């Protein structure tokens, strides 16, 4: 894994989602389904087997009427870097078939369906429920096969799938840059489908190594602590697991930031004092 060919430009692609701007409209979910040939079934109400690479969760502050507040939290694959950002993501570490791997040149965790034989260890290992198993053959009823995107292979029964940060869009941008004799791809050349679709502009996507990218400016990742956000309003999900996600969330609301992990009584206060 560590012997991957990484010469040339390396990136660390990441995402920052402003939860105060997200309204839970669902555009990101559908843009993702359309871009990535995600299938659909007659009944999608059992969310455990409903394949949604991007899923929007609804959070509540648990207070009773009229103090209730709600917030939506879009959840793509976190593209974990693992401890010390060395590529030991929870899923990559357990895959017996090298069907999922860590891209050291992009920071993206790949998922190659033709290598997967469906053991689902990765699903058990993923703390974010970002992985889905194809229990049935995906079907595109009627003439719907005609709208499938050739850049993303349709999956088949018996394999696991997940968000790839629209890796095919990165490939296209990289090819274009190569063709134009450029070393580096531009921020706007590679954007995921969900980022582009968000009508509220709540999602920022780019290179976490590049201080000129919006995502970097929003979260101010700390290179000495595996990209931990230095923006006090930004957080990552289940930070203490050391999975080092590349998806950051931003909210002015304390209860929302607190919902990003399970804290013991009094722990939150102590933690925030230390950082504050």
């Amino acid at each position, binding site marked *: 894994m560590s012997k991957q060919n990484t010469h040339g430009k390396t990136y660390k692609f990441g995402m920052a989602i402003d939860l105060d*701007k997200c*309204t*839970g*409209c*669902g*555009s990101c*979910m*559908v*843009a993702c*389904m*359309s*871009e990535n*040939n995600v299938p*659909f079934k007659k009944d*999608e*109400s*059992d969310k455990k087997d409903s394949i949604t690479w991007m899923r*929007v969760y*609804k959070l*509540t502050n*648990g207070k*009773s*009427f*009229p103090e*209730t*507040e*709600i917030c939506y939290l879009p959840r793509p694959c976190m593209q974990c870097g693992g401890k010390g950002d060395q590529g030991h993501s929870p899923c990559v570490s357990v895959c*017996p*078939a090298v069907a999922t791997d860590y891209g050291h040149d992009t920071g993206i965790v790949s998922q190659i*369906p*033709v*290598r*997967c*034989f*469906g053991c689902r260890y990765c699903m058990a290992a993923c703390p974010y429920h970002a992985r889905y198993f194809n229990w049935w*053959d995906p079907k*595109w*009823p*009627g*003439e*719907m*096969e005609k*709208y*499938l*995107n*050739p850049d993303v*292979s*349709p*999956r*088949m*029964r*018996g*394999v696991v799938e997940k968000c790839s940060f629209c890796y095919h869009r990165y490939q296209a941008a990289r090819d274009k840059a190569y063709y134009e004799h450029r070393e580096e791809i531009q921020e706007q050349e590679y954007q995921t*489908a969900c980022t*582009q*679709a968000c*009508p*509220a*502009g*709540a999602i920022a996507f780019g290179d976490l190594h590049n201080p000129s990218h919006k995502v970097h400016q929003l979260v101010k990742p700390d290179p000495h602590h595996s990209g931990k956000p230095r923006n006090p309003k930004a957080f990552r999900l289940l930070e203490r697991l050391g999975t080092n996600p590349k998806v950051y969330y931003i909210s002015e609301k304390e209860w929302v930031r607190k919902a990003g992990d399970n804290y013991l009584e009094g722990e939150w206060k102590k933690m925030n004092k230390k950082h504050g």
Partner: protein
Amino acid sequence: MKVDRRCFLGLGLGAVAGAVVSPPGMKLTDDLAIWTQNWPWTPVPKDGKVTYEQTTCSLCKGNCGLSVRKVGGRPVHISGQEGHPVNNGGACLHGISGLQYLYGLTRINAPLKKNGETFEEISWKEAVSHVADKLNAMRENGKAEKIACITGKERGSIPELFKRFMKAYGSPHYYSMPDMNTTWRTVAEKMHGENADIGFDLENATHILSFGSGLVEGWGSPVHNFRVNAQRKDKGVKLVQVEPRLSNTAASADRWIPAIAGSEADLALSMCSVIMKEKLYDSSYLVSYDTGFSAFSGLVTTGYAPEKMESKTGVAASEIKTLAREFAGAGRPLAIAGKGRGDTAGDLTEFAAVHALNCLVGNINAKGGVRLNASPDYLKFPEMKLDAVAEKGAEKAPEKSIDALMRKISGTGQSPVQALLMQDANIAYTMHDTDRVKQALKKVPFKISFSSFMDETAKLADIILPSPTFLERYEDLPSDASMSRQVVGLAVPVQKPVKNSMNPGDAVIRIAKAMKSGVSENFPWKKYEDCLESVTGKLWDPLSDKGYAVISEKKPRKTVSADLSFFSVNKGKRPEAAGDRTEYPMMLVPYDNMRITSSEVTVSPFAVKTVSDEEIKGKESFVQVNPETARKIGVSRGDKVKITTPAGSAAVRIDLFEGVMPGLIGMPKGLGHTTDNPYVAGKGVNTNQLISVSIDPNTGQDAAFGINAKISRV
């Protein structure tokens, strides 16, 4: 180390065993992967050259600009069009699902004619002459006034062609589906004496007070307002949301005021009383309050003092005062009304009360305020030649509303409507008291549907002339009237029709041409495209070049007079929620969820997938109640219950939500479709069948927003 014979043999055997056993492990892993996934039916999408084409969405009245990515000529992905004046790059999930409409499972393949209980396919020639013959015969037998026409939209050349057809034919019964803009236009007429659209300059307001308007639930032009809401957060513009249920808009707002459902007008007038009493109104504007100012002042200060309105609205007097002071004190305040998506007509008194707030702060035609826009007049149709039959029809007045028409049909023995044309309107699903509407439709002997899909209304039709979807046809699409800027978009085909369909514009032109003289000469065009090009006149070039045109860049008039006598004249005339409070102690309020369409367009499979399992589970849908209410009636989360209203009853499940006011039942709109599409239909309950029509005596329109209801265990 000495290698003896025993060791040598052992190593040799070990090597052989290793060589034999190891590859099968690897081979089996590989084979397993192949065996589990090498299915011949897994599609391999064809590759090709990537191109982008621009068009305009017409799934709702927002009319966003879309960019369609095609691969080898095949559309594969839809996104928002960058730089478009309506949506500037954004798109909603329904627009993005557009290709699921194009290849929709309930698309109608060819013209259909009802034969007994089933439909049979016929040719376009047969279909057109069948309709023309029937309508000709009716016209000749003096029954010209017995045909009616309902279009989903009011504006654009296609509705205009239908309107023109009805006029030439000699029937006054042309209707379009009402929405909040219908009510706002009445407000403009009653309070400003103008025949104008009311647009809201939300982009430039600095304080938005919304009386239940779902800015992020699809109100007005949905994506436009999503952007307004997001920019508002960057600019620090305050949003105050008045609503009894914590909607997504309320959750996104700076302040949520949970007022009792139906008390919005009282709250607005109470705020007016504070503004009057504390003289917070814009006195420079005072010169133009030409009538009713002092009467209005007297009315609100005596009748709507905050202390008096406390119990009625459920909002503390001190809070009403704060709201009023903050509103009047803001730089560019703006009050809006039209509940949820605003896709039904509203209560005129409520809209007028909200508008009185705008008048008092003097924001009419001001930056960040209310714009009185003249109705768009970019369409120049040639003068009509009316014959005697048409002249006679033109003298008659239509019914006050579609509801009135439906009641007339179901009320009498023989239906006064003998033929009904329905375009972009799924009234057997979208209208309140749905069962009664269906009964009325069954009484009409000849129903013509122009639907692209076999929806609830098309199923009841006698003949269907299927339309192409917005991705396959030309159409001019004026933006929602609630936008301060008027934009016209052009839908252009990005895909050849995938079914044997015909643009409804063409269909109506062809029917008219097949009619006898009197009607046919009013339709001089060969085909709809020619008509579109000629009636849009000067606008055609920018429309066909850019795909859109902005038509109201003119600066609005500064001074507008405001007549506040409305409230003294119409005191007490309000639509009321049906049902006796003792029998039905709770209130059912359907709510809009951006992820579910509730209009004539049925939701797509992609969009259904995004709906929470707290709204749909299997074939059932949920109603939201406050945990306190649930305790009172003895139900808990997930329980199966029966919800009963004066209009009907339905089986649902209970979902507990702290954000619903106790005593209220929240229920998602847009579910319970009964079409033959298992991916989207047969899920949950259509709220419209539980809501009775409640006519606003001021407008004659149905203004029901909810209904008294009860929940019982089953």
